[in-house]
């Protein structure tokens, strides 16, 4: 659909290198913050609210997410970029509905995972982070989870690239694994910034672990390990249902889907050629 412009200059290799550097820095900021928080947590949680950990968690994860957005956003083709608001709206409409009800799930990543499957890991990561940033205009409590959302988008894109959406039964498995990683990474945010979870049902699960004497981070991590894998398995399944229900013409509009043969039922080389001939 989008072709390289003939009249406008294309980005230089130096700019590409700078973006690569920003991407790596963003990933390092998120990973470093997580490792620091997990190593330092035992002494800190009883230190009272607003302890240094909350600020480190907030700033480290946010800086990482913003760096990722800055690195990825300018490289996306316009056809992917216009899909990001659509994904954000799907996240918000479906997530706002489930978030406060009595189900220990969130389902707030359907749009992000959809973009990741159609347009790849980089677009998925940018959508996840942007989704949290824009959503925070309505609900500021989702802002700290930007890094976790970016990770979910990136992992969903990688799963799609390696063919996990080609078989219908593999999609929930990929979602389950993504949920484990995403939940473990987001748990310190819930523990240090919020001192708990924002939903009632998830709060009840955390309480159960706390009553057995777990530390707050351990209890929230265990809760995340119960809720998140199931949640992401449901989300990945719903996205698989959606993607296969889209007409072939719409699916093949996306170069990522064509190039990596993300979905079953089309030969890579032949349909890529046919689609570029018709699409660009």
């Amino acid at each position, binding site marked *: 659909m989008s072709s390289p412009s003939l009249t406008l200059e294309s980005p230089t290799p130096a700019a590409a290198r700078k973006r690569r550097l920003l991407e790596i820095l963003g990933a390092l900021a998120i990973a470093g913050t997580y490792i620091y928080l997990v190593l330092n947590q035992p002494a800190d949680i009883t230190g009272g609210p607003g302890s240094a950990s909350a600020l480190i968690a907030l700033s480290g994860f946010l800086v990482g997410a913003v760096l990722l957005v800055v690195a990825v956003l300018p490289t996306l083709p316009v056809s992917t970029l216009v899909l990001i608001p659509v994904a954000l709206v*799907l996240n918000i409409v479906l997530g706002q509905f489930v978030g406060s009800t009595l189900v220990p799930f969130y389902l707030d990543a359907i749009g992000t995972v959809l973009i990741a499957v159609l347009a790849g890991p980089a677009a998925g990561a940018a959508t996840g982070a942007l989704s949290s940033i824009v959503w925070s205009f309505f609900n500021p*409590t989702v802002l700290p989870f930007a890094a976790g959302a970016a990770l979910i988008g990136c992992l969903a894109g990688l799963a799609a690239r390696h063919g996990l959406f080609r078989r219908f039964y593999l999609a929930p498995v990929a979602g389950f694994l993504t949920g484990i990683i995403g939940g473990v990474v987001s748990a310190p945010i819930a523990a240090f910034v919020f001192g708990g979870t924002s939903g009632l049902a998830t709060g009840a699960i955390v309480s159960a672990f706390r009553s057995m004497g777990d530390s707050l981070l351990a209890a929230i991590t265990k809760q995340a390990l119960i809720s998140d894998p199931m949640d992401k398995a449901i989300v990945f399944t719903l996205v698989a249902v959606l993607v296969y229900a889209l007409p072939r013409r719409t699916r093949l509009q996306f170069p990522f889907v064509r190039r990596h043969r993300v979905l079953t039922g089309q030969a890579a080389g032949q349909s890529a050629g046919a689609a570029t001939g018709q699409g660009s």
Partner: protein
Amino acid sequence: MRLHPLTSLAAAGSTAIMTTAAASLPLSLAVIAAVAGLSLAGGVERRMLAAAAGILVPLVASLFFLHGLFFPEGSVVLAHWGPARVTVEGLQFALERSAQLSAAVLVLLLCSFTISVPDLVAALSARGVHARFAFVLASTLTLLPAITTRLARIRQAQEARGLVITRGVFRRMAAFRWQAVPLVLSLVEEAGTRAAALEARGFGATGPRTSYREVTDPPFQRRLRMVLLLAAAAAVALRLWQPTAGA
């Protein structure tokens, strides 16, 4: 005086950061009171109340339930039923954390309810932030109300065709498919059309742009923003310097 959108964003952000860093109950309560006064003065109290209740009631209830009943680190026990123990420390922790989170949430909500989105978009693109971020922000904020009405219309249409949501996982999944597929399909289709239109107008181009919308940015507000950001940075630095003070 009308605030530049970036000034109100900076004010809200630095207030949220400073209340988090200070972690003192009186300061959090003062911020909450100030936000309540400002929203009354600005005439947005109804929208604020609805949005804040939707976010904060589950959050605060969950915090009090969690820490009020189960706080293994607490020592002064007020009451206990089986494994649940109400401790002074737990209630204190829940109260402080709730006040602090409410202050941050309210301040940011007030900012997003009083800010003018077109001004914010114009200000962001004028200051060298990539036009793409501004596009995503503005496009989402305008799509959102349109989509909620469209979703209602799709549900009505499908119900007219015989959609009845019944119990059972597979039935629910089928109902989801009936409603979500037309929605996603139309959105993706529209996005494709929009991409072509935007590209034809040089959206992907780099280089200088002109804007129809001029947002005035008085030098006083520019200095104010610098002061606010420095104050927030100082509060964070102070907290990291003395991690346990005031806690």
